[in-house]
């Protein structure tokens, strides 16, 4: 089983809220036929109640929005690098916020199948080289890097 990895960059200034950021990321999943359109709203609704922002080392923030698996057709990730960081709620305490430059919109069918991928993603979050790559590298390179690290069986 493979996981599809989509990579994009939001350099326009119109991304001014986490809702818009999730729509941007989710729209890429939709265009690649990996989700049903309802998935995007499901992610936004869930984010309101149970935010997914994570504070990593060196004040780096990432968000991992995801929603109900019943709206997922094919598993994978839509990664978005934001030119302007956006505030997401903090997972561990929804009354707090974390400024996120990187969004990993996860499309997950069944947790057990994707567990290896998710654990590997969390391991990458602890890796300074990885964060540096996300911040600076060309999108093609990021995609190859993520595919190599995450798309294993």
């Amino acid at each position, binding site marked *: 089983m493979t996981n599809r990895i989509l990579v994009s960059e939001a350099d326009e200034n119109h991304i001014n809220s986490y809702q818009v950021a999730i729509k941007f990321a989710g729209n890429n999943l939709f265009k690649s036929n990996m989700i049903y359109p309802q998935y995007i709203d499901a992610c936004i609704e*869930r984010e309101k109640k149970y935010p997914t922002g994570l504070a990593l080392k060196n004040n780096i923030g990432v968000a991992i929005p995801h929603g109900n698996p019943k709206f997922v057709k094919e598993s994978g990730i839509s990664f978005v690098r934001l030119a302007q960081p956006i505030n997401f709620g903090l997972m561990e305490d929804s009354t707090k916020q974390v400024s996120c430059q990187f969004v990993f919109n996860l499309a997950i069918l069944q947790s057990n199948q994707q*567990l290896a991928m998710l654990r590997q993603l969390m391991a990458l979050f602890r890796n300074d080289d990885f964060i540096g790559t996300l911040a600076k590298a060309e999108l093609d390179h990021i995609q190859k890097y993520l595919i190599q690290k995450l798309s294993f069986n």
Partner: protein
Amino acid sequence: MKKVLVVCGNGIASSSIMLAALKDYLDEQNISADLDKASLMTCTDDFFNDKDLIVSSTKLDRPGVKTPVIVGSALLTGIGEDEVLEKIKEAILS
């Protein structure tokens, strides 16, 4: 054996990762526990109170829950992970 419930928003991604990390740690420490995961959205207070320990991805604002809760998002980010694992270990062995 202590019953430990790992919970997150929808019981899909975060709780699965936290559970796997916790299981690895407990195996390594030779500590046995009855591990399960669930969604915060669907759990009733009674379901929580039937457990000995809850490890949650987020702060729990549920006055009806009497079971001790440890916030375990460190198991995702790695920041403060050792302290959280130590706390969980103490709670299980107590």
